[in-house]
């Protein structure tokens, strides 16, 4: 399988003090569905930002489609277009991502930055908006949108750039069940069309739904394990170790009973 993204011994710390990633090695194949899981503060978002070339690792290298991503290569106009157009990042907080006057402006921002004409950008925007069911929102400013609409617009603003790899940071956070289902179906649809999907989350139900490869980040900011979803999710000991499940204490009659408890399994069908 062709490798889309490769991280080689990536280490990152905030302000040189707070450790966020230590020695991350991973390969993401083209067309793969990958979930990066870990507890709060394990470095998931940081890893996505490193992959998107937004922050520069203290040590280690990053490759996109076999080409190195660095401050130097990102200064080359040609590579910049190739990389920014190929790698899409959906931020956890949609408000951060929506910085243009209206939804339509939001949609055409990326294509216009990539050098497309106004007309091309607009026709792409209309296509994506119809696809995501937000064609009626074109003239709305982003603060006039609901949470679910904001998420769709944020994803749309990335999809118009027709990226190969889609990085999503906690995509289902704060969405109602219907919007969550829409999102999961969308991810499958994009994946079937050959796009690589990378999701950072601590929502084990989502990981289960995606049913792809899972990379587990430990609280020491290291890759604890990479494997297929069912293998990882059934490894209670591992999940307990990285603090994704917890010991549940409750009473049966007179005796207190303690067992490992993960919420996602209760919702399995």
């Amino acid at each position, binding site marked *: 399988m062709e490798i889309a993204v490769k991280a080689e011994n990536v280490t990152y710390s905030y302000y040189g003090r707070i450790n966020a990633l230590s020695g991350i090695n991973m390969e993401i194949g083209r067309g793969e569905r990958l979930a990066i899981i870990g507890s709060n503060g394990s470095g998931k978002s940081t890893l996505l930002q490193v992959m998107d070339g937004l922050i520069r690792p203290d040590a280690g290298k990053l490759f996109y489609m076999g080409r190195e991503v660095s401050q130097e290569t990102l200064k080359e106009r040609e590579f910049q277009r190739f990389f920014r157009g190929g790698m899409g990042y959906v*931020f956890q907080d949609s408000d951060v991502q929506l910085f243009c*006057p209206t939804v339509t402006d939001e949609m055409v921002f990326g294509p216009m930055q990539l050098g497309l004409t106004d007309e091309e950008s607009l026709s792409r925007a209309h296509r994506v908006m119809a696809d995501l069911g937000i064609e009626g929102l074109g*003239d709305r400013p982003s*603060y006039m949108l609901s949470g679910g609409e904001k998420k769709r617009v944020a994803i749309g603003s990335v999809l118009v750039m027709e990226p190969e790899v889609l990085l999503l940071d906690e995509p289902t956070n704060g969405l109602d069940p219907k919007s969550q289902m829409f999102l999961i179906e969308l991810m499958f649809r994009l994946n079937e069309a050959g796009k690589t999907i990378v999701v950072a989350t601590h929502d084990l139900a989502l990981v289960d739904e995606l049913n792809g490869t899972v990379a587990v980040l430990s609280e020491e900011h290291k890759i604890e394990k990479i494997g297929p979803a069912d293998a990882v999710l059934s490894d209670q000991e591992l999940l307990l170790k990285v603090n994704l499940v917890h010991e549940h204490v409750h009473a049966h009659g007179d005796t207190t009973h303690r067992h490992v408890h993960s919420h996602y399994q209760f919702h399995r069908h």
Partner: protein
Amino acid sequence: MHIPDGYLSPQTFVPMYAVSAGFWTVGLRKLKAQLTVKQVPYLSMAAAFSFLIMMFNIPIPGGTSGHAVGGGIIAILLGPWTAVIAVSVVLMIQALVFGDGGITAYGANCFNMAIVAPFVTWFIFRAVAGKRKRGFRLLAGAFLSGWLGLSAAAACAGVEFGIQPIIAHGPGGAPLYSPYPLSIALPAMFFGHLLVFGPFEGVVTMLLVKYFYATDAEFAAGAQTAGKRRWKLWLALAAVAALTPLGIIIPAKLQGGDAWGEWGAEALKKMLGYVPAGFRGLHNLWNPPIPNYGAGAASSDTGGYLASGFTGAVLAVGLIYLLSKFLKKGHKASRMSYLDKGLSHIAKLTKNSYVQWELSSRKGFLQELDARVKVIFTLLMLVAVNVRKDLPTELIIAAFIFVLALASKAGLKLIYARVAFIGFFFGFLVALPSALNIITPGRPILTLITLQKAHSFLTYSIPKEIGITSGGLFGVAMLTMRVANSVSLAMLVLFTTPFTEIMRAMKTFRVPDSVLAVVNLTYKYIFIFAKTVEDMHLAKISRTAGTVDGSEARRWAAGRMGIIFKKTQTRCDEIFKAMLSRGFTGEIRLRGRGAMKKSDWAALFAACAAGIILIVV
């Protein structure tokens, strides 16, 4: 201190635009060099921060509350040039969306609040506090700089008001714009701010500086890295700024001959500008002692002039204090009420723009038109409103605006409620005392009070018969119509055009895309942060039992502003990353509007024709 439309003559607001434009150009260039591509989110956050500071009401000892302008604190924290752009953006949003400050007066408002205030603040702070990071000098510097920065801005506004009667009068010396001469307007604005609002701004600045320097050592270290001093640039800008008012005054003086001699009335009158007519009696009660005192110093020098201004201001303060006590009795305000007031402000703001947005997307005559046409139309009409010197034309324009509003079903009630409010307070009430012959010279057509003899005090004089003159009445009517017409024009375009479309139309006027991006992003973040502030307040209420005293409330408010500022900083980094991720390379390109339809061209032609006829004929 927001000057509304209608107060300044074109001879004033046009040069003020030019001066401010000079500072905007230099400011943008400087920021571009310093901040590289990050400037859009950076400036937007600073502007959103300053906007919210203005929404916070803080109790002033004595029972009233006030709000800070915020330009000074931004100048101290982020540098004066950032403050120039950020506060200008805030003033633009306030003028366009909330009708706070006029559109023609925008240049002058920017000069006072976005240029003079930040620079004076910054210079004083640097001079007093230097590079200190704690201690008395730091706090003293912050207090003094906030205080004097605001007072300097007020003095500029006072001069701008005061030169209006000199520049332009109607028949028989009736005022056409701001009716009060320099001898009243300048001391009123300057001393009023020096004694009341200035110290308050000083306290706010001090609290904020204290907060930032105490909680964030890293930040304090970075805050004072000032660039190299470029004295030549400074001198040039200062010279331009200083020469403009002179350029306005000198020709008028040569023309008018005895214009300076026309200074009349006494400083007290200023208060009557802001207090309903019932208080007129009060002023007559203690009037007699003043001429006696004045007679001694009447050899008329600046000292005496200052003394009289000072007296007026002390009285103004006293009256404001009494009024606040009086009003407080009316509705037993709780200790937290100033915060609630600020928050209801914020809630209203959010609601207001939802309503505007909803109305502007309705179907109607003006809604169908291209935003560019509407912007050109509004500007032409604003010029007409402010250039014409006769009442019939103002009435025709008012009728025309009404017909357009009617044809567009553009929330008539909302528009005219606002017009009536602003027209009454900023037009009629403020101008009312100028109808008296104390201020507007002339023979009274209705005598109110007859004194035993005429008094004169320094440059002020009180005639024997005090009454309303026809010229004065004309002036009041003119100002009221001007203010009302200007506000209704601004409201009309706002209620029929989404804010984003107005901004897009500005592209046609060569406003750089990056500036428009800043304005849009600021507008958006005002809402997001307003929501944050509301939540923080609710969170506080949920944890507060009993009453909170004034000093604790002040500390809390300063702390909240500090948190907002930190949030704006983090947000700024995140947004910048989001922009980078979508291929941002340093140049924002805003999508323009498509071609105009035939009906748009027809409307544009009609608008231009109507505008030119109204201005020229």
